[in-house]
């Protein structure tokens, strides 16, 4: 029997920690791509193991997957379209929770889709 070496089992990071990490970062908000690049850099700096551009279903590719938390960045899309997309992601059995990372105003409380919690992370708060 072997126990996993520490290098092979990165510390698990939960949704709450991710919300704090992202919510306190000051990212370039000019485009969605800029935010995605910023987030990738943020995760690398904090040594958060992540997968990017993860295919959850043939037509669904989520921006980041960290453990079982899916992260989607949205800048400048109609709210309804965002909700439809998140709803599809929530069906995937690879995710337990979703983080919607956006500079657009959403109610901060979050909500549920398909029995999974969608947390809202405002990119604006970091800049206050």
């Amino acid at each position, binding site marked *: 029997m072997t126990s996993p070496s520490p290098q092979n089992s990165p510390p698990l990071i939960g949704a709450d920690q991710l919300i704090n990490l992202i919510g306190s970062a000051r990212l370039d908000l*000019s485009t969605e791509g800029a935010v995605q690049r910023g987030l990738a850099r943020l995760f690398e700096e904090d040594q958060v193991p992540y997968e990017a551009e993860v295919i959850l279903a043939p037509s669904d590719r989520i921006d980041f997957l960290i453990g079982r938390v899916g992260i989607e960045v949205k800048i400048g899309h109609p709210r309804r379209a965002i909700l439809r997309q998140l709803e599809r992601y929530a069906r995937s059995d690879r995710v337990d929770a979703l983080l919607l990372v956006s500079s657009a*105003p959403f109610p901060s409380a979050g909500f549920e889709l398909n029995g999974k919690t969608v947390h809202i992370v405002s990119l604006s708060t970091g800049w206050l």
Partner: protein
Amino acid sequence: MSGSLAFRDGSWVVSDLPGHVSLRFKQVFSGIASGTVPPFTLRDTPDRARDLEWFMSRYLLRMSPETEARLRRSVADYEEGQNRVARLLSSDYVPPALAGIRAPERADPHQVRAAALLRETGRLLLLDDVGLGKTVSALAAIADGWGLPAVIVVQPHVADQWIGFIERFTELRAVQVKKRAPHALDPADVYVFRYTNLAGWVDVLGQIAPRTVIFDEVQELRHGAQTEKGRAAQSLVNLCDNRIGLTATPIYNYGDEIFTVVEYIAPGCLGSRDEFHTNWCRNQGTHWIVRDPEALGAYLQGEGIALRRTEEDPEVAQVLPPLRRALFQVAWDEGDVETDRELQRRLAQRVLTGSFTQRGQAARELDLLLRQETGIAKARAVAAYVRNLVAAGEQVILGGWHRAVYDIWREALSGLRVVMFTGSETQPQKKAARQAILDGAADVIIISLRSGAGLDGLQDRIAHVVFGELDWSPEVHKQLVGRARRRGQTREVTAHYLWTDGGSDPVLMSMLGLKASQAHGILNPYAGGVQRAPELDEGRMRAMARAVLETLPEPGPAVPVAEVPVFDWGDP
């Protein structure tokens, strides 16, 4: 030989250029209007000789021995000046100990560096960010007797504050000149004039024989000789060897304004006004707008004319305590809100469909209405939050916008000692409010978000700034935080942003984030704090108008009660 060069009456005159050289010359010296032919006249500026020498390494120009000597001397002077500035600005430069600062006060390293730069070059546009102690930087230059007597020109409402600073930080004798009509002045080291009374004194300024002039809030001079104070300032500048202008207000955008201001501090550095327009500006309506403010800022700093530091500067970070932020969501309380929903709806519709003027007016009214409503809806929660801070033994700066909101705060804070510093208070009332905080006789000072500029002293007592209402502009928030987080503050300052999920806050928040991130992108080690010329921002108001229409129940019977109050603010 490709032409000839001569120096006449403070200008370089280039003539006899063959066509292809003339073409190239105009490309290099873009201050020369296209469509003109030699001889070209270029006003002498410190870097001009260096540029001409460089051009001549490709196209040799004929010149007399006198002109050549002049050119060599100018180039040598310029390079020596550049080296001195580079040395002063380099990170391994150790600022000297400057004498004359009255113990226990001191000048911090970044302030000494600014003072040393002024003493080295005799001219400085000091653009340090809010709260970095530009006043002390200027005083540090003259505290040991260098450059005296000095004249300081200030806005009337900070004249007392300047006298206070001079007495606190230096041993210099200072006289405040309050009247416009000249009268006998006591001999002094420093004379504090106001922009409003300087013109009355122009004929007798020569008797003071000032050697140094300090223009506080130098953007006052941006209209130059069109104004009486501008003409008076010019007379004053002509008497002085050393000039320093202080401002944190980014003034890079409007070409004529920055040109005018630079002319007071470092005359001729940007060439003639026409050359400046051609080199740096584009025409927009009646204004000359600087094409690339960042580049202009970098040029001014590179030449050692301007100096701007922000809190990100390592030397500054050593002396300014860190900032903490607290973001706290408070509930939306309908209780005090008495807004006319029907009026909101009509305004919102007009913003989206009205004529140009109707849209503008409706947008402003709607903005006002929604922001006031938002402020009111969270007022009691904000007051409760402030009460907690006071209970913990803290004095608090509370920032807001609307009278109606202040009224609720004051009512909800009854039992606490609250003083006001807003647009409605007179100068003596404001002074009393500030004093009450300093004496520990008040717990809370309510400051209007746009009234606090220049207010100093609160940092001795207060380390908590609460935003009970938000502003569209991140700069306004920074300005208020700067009341507490400035030189002299010994504690960590916390900025508390209280926001709610309703009304105008969500849109304001997303706007603030975008603006702040863009402003940050423009900042570079040289040209900090650049703001673009103000634009008409209809987009944000449309977003807000749409939100109003979508969140208000439709008139008529069918009102979905159970609908989740999720606002679609559209795309900011």
